[in-house]
Structure formats: structure tokens, C-alpha cells
């Protein structure tokens, strides 16, 4: 048998091999493990393996009093901690019948939207880092530091906020915060323009994202994917508009929707969301009412009414739902956290079939996952 005859033999079996990505990997945004069955450069099956950062949040909900669980809410998705705290606090307020003063609601909206911008900036930097561009990370973190300074002066934390309390917020805003936030909003608009010219219009980015990683609206519905994933597939679903909560009805803002369903659409949704969040913050500062920032008379040890309640918010990554079951005691009976990254990742197996590995990583980055959000 000569070598030539081996080469010219028509039948070549396609052998697949298993490539393990993670749990320690620069492109997985945390401890996610992907078991990829590869046919050359193409993925035939991608199986995400989670659980490497499972920190028992739901079990801790049954071991802590209602108020002791508040720091946990900041650590589920640490980049958008304000919205997560909001959902939990508001669910308990529903159960206990606590009314939140208007000023506190406006402060909650301002801090949640600032947190959304800082979360999208981290996503922006990390996503571009995955695609190979190191510089936008430094610019994004620079802008983010301005937000963090404002929120640190107000709440005391840079990252894992525990700022909302049952009945309002724990610290009222002062004039420095208002002035600083207005300066930030004024300075951020030209920066968004710079990002568009420097990064969004960059030909390399466009070639890497346009047409890559198509997710249909029907797939989003079947998997429960929300946030920029469903809005990048043409469906205008935003909890702030569909199930308005807090004082979002008072503001005039758009929900960016792009119909293409590819990575570029999801990218553009998030960039545009940052601009809309700046609008909301500005309007909220203009309309900020006076009054207390925390309802008086909330008992120190809260015992909400028996039953189950839930509250949903639009976090930076999608729909976050807290479902609490109370049996009238000071410790919850059950706290269920429905996180957006969990549902968003569950469609990765179906969406990545037949993709090339670098494109699949671009898809993973465009889903904007935070792994402790999945594992809780």
C-alpha cells in the first residue's frame, strides 16, 4: 500500500474530538465549562457545564432573616447588583404591604440605571477583549470609574451594593451626588459618540459580528431568553415597559430593538440602552421629589403575610424574577431567584451547532453572561 493510495482513497471518516473550554479560561467570563464536540474547527455539540461557582443563595434564603438576605442579592449578579436588590426588596414590600416614598423610588431608578450603564461598560470591555481588542476595556473601565465614585460616595460599595432597604433606601442623596451625576451624564454622551466611531463602525468588528450567531425570536420565547438577547431578535420585550414597576411610567425612554438576531444586533441593543439609561437618569434628576428616603415604622424583624409573591425587574442581562414564599415567620420559607443568564445560556447548545469556534465565542460574549448569575 503506497502513501499515494492512502491519500487518494475517497472515504475519510469525520472524526470528532472533545475540546474542553474552561472552567479557567479567559473567554468564559467566569467559571463556565464548555464540553465542545468538534469536527475540525466546527462545533457539532456544545454542552455547558455549570456549577463551579454555586454558592447556595436559595438555601441561604431559608437560613437568614428577610433583611439578612439583602447582601446576598448583591452577589448573585455583582455587575448589576442594584436591580437584584430592587427585585428582592420590592417582593418583600409587596408581601408586607410596605409603601415606598416617591423620593426613594426615584433614587432607586437613578441608581439602577447608573448600575446598568456600568454593567454594560464591563460587558463592552470584556466582549471586545474576547474578540481580540484590548483597548476598549481600558476606556470602558475609565468611564465606569466615574460611576463607581458616585455610587461609592452614596452607598459605600463599589461593586456589590446592598443599598435598598424595605421601605426605601438607606442613605439619601445629597447635592454632591446630584451635581456629580449631571456632570457624568453630560460627559458620557460624547464618549458614547466616540465608542460608536471608534469601535462600532470598525470594519473588523463588523465582519466579526454581522451575520454571526443567529438566534430567532421563537427560540428566545421557547427558552425564556430575555434582555438584549430577545430585543436583538426583534421582540420589544422589556420588563420596564411590559410590567412597569417603581416609577418607570414617569419617564420617556425608548427600548432599542434590532430585528437581525445576530451578534451585532445584541451589541447595538446594549450600546443604545446605555444612551437611553442616560436619558432616564437625567429625567429622574429633574423630577426628583422631596420627602423621606425611607418609610418610617418598618419593623426591625419583618414577618410578611403568608403566601407566595413575586417581583420582576429588567436587570442589565434580562428579566430577573424573585419568588418568595412566606409562612409568616421572620425567615423566608423559600426564595427562588430566576436569573436571566440561566435562561440565556440554555439556548447556547442549540444556537451554536455548526458554528466555528471563534464565532461561538463571539456568540457567548454577546449573550453577556455572568456565571454566578447562572449558578447562584
Amino acid at each position, binding site marked *: 500500500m503506497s502513501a499515494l493510495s492512502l491519500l487518494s482513497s475517497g472515504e475519510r471518516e469525520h472524526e470528532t474530538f472533545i475540546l474542553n473550554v474552561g*472552567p*479557567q*479560561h*479567559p473567554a468564559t467570563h*467566569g*467559571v463556565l465549562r464548555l464540553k465542545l464536540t468538534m469536527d475540525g474547527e466546527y462545533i457539532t455539540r456544545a454542552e455547558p457545564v455549570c*456549577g*463551579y*461557582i*454555586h*454558592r*447556595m443563595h436559595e*438555601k*441561604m434564603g431559608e*437560613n*437568614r432573616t428577610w433583611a439578612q438576605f439583602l*447582601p*446576598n442579592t448583591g*452577589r448573585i449578579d*455583582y*455587575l448589576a447588583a442594584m436591580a437584584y436588590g430592587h427585585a428582592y426588596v420590592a417582593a418583600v414590600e409587596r408581601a408586607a404591604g410596605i409603601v415606598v416614598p416617591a423620593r426613594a423610588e426615584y433614587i432607586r431608578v437613578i441608581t439602577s440605571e447608573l448600575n446598568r450603564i456600568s454593567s454594560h461598560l*464591563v460587558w463592552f*470591555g470584556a466582549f471586545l477583549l474576547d474578540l481580540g481588542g484590548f483597548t476598549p*476595556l*481600558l476606556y470602558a*473601565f*475609565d468611564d*465606569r*470609574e466615574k460611576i463607581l465614585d458616585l455610587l461609592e460616595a452614596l452607598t459605600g460599595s*463599589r*461593586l*456589590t451594593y446592598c443599598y435598598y432597604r424595605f421601605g426605601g433606601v438607606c442613605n439619601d442623596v445629597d447635592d454632591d451626588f446630584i451635581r456629580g451625576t449631571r456632570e457624568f451624564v453630560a460627559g458620557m454622551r460624547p464618549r458614547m459618540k466616540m465608542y460608536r466611531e471608534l469601535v462600532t463602525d470598525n470594519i473588523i468588528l463588523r465582519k466579526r459580528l454581522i451575520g454571526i450567531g443567529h438566534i430567532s425570536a421563537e427560540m428566545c420565547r421557547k427558552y425564556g431568553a430575555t434582555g438584549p438577547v430577545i430585543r436583538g431578535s426583534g421582540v420589544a420585550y422589556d420588563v420596564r415597559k411590559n410590567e412597569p414597576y417603581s416609577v418607570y411610567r414617569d419617564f420617556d425612554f425608548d427600548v432599542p430593538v434590532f430585528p437581525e438576531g445576530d451578534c451585532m444586533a445584541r451589541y447595538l441593543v446594549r450600546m443604545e440602552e446605555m444612551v437611553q439609561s442616560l436619558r432616564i437618569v437625567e429625567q429622574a434628576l429633574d423630577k426628583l421629589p422631596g420627602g423621606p428616603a425611607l418609610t418610617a415604622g418598618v419593623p426591625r424583624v419583618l414577618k410578611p403575610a403568608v403566601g407566595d409573591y413575586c417581583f420582576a425587574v429588567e436587570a442589565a442581562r434580562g428579566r430577573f424574577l424573585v419568588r418568595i414564599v412566606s409562612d409568616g415567620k421572620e425567615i423566608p420559607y423559600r426564595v427562588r431567584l430566576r436569573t436571566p443568564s440561566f435562561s440565556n445560556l440554555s439556548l447556547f447548545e442549540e444556537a451554536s451547532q455548526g458554528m466555528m469556534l471563534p464565532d461561538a465565542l463571539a456568540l457567548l460574549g454577546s449573550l453577556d453572561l455572568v456565571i*454566578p448569575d447562572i449558578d447562584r
Partner: protein
Amino acid sequence: MLDDVLSLARANSLWPLTFGLACCAIEMMAAGASRFDISRFGAEVFRPSPRQADVMIVAGTINKKMAPAVKTLYDQMLEPKWVIAMGNCAISGGPFVYPGQYAVIEGVDKLFPVDVFIPGCPPRPEALIEGILKLEEKLTGKRRWPEVIPQ
């Protein structure tokens, strides 16, 4: 004499392993970004491969499922190697320890020896830089950077 030069060279160019597990990872990234800039101390070159890294900054909670992977990474690092435990979770399990907990390893020093502990939840980037300076002090025997004393 040669030892002094070698330890100075090692201290000045500690290459960390990208090992951000949870929230502390973001503060580690912020320390590597332009405002806090650990590049001033030679440590901005985060290596994805443990074979090329000097120091493993364990930033985040270690899980029972993750522990074998962490141990493998530690074993794969070449001597001389150091470990910085960043954040309360890496020091002792952090806020996730309660009686009857089933998933968290209470401190990374239960797996392998740690050189510097940085408390905080998460520690500020300045605290991480101070931790790196403490490690440099451990390597070279003396502190080469001024100590910041609050007024």
C-alpha cells in the same frame, strides 16, 4: 548577592494567572485597568496559562466542584510560585459560610499554602495593589514603596 538580584527581578515582574472566579475578579480587572494600574508594578501581564504565571491571585469563592480544578492549576504552575488569596471568600469562605453549608470550601488555604491574604468583600483595587506590594516585600525582604498613612 545574586539571590537579591533574582528576588528583585521576580518581585518587579510578578505575572498573575487569570483566575477571577466571582465578584473579586471585577476588582482585579479594575486594578489592571488604567486608573489603578498594576502595570506600574510589573504585574499587568495576566497569563491564561498556569505554566507561564508566577502568582495565582485567587479572586472569588472556591466551590467543592471547582476545587480539583484549582488544585490542578496550582500544581501546573512552575516554581517559584506564590498565591494571593483575594477577598473574604478565598480567605475563609466569605459571606457564604453558614452552619450546614454544603458547597463552599472555607478558604483556599485548605487546598494549598497562601502567601498573602487580602480581606474585603470585594477588596478595593488599592487593597489588591497593597497585597502585591506585601508579596514583593516577602520576596525581597524590604518594602520598596512608601506606605500610605491616612491623615
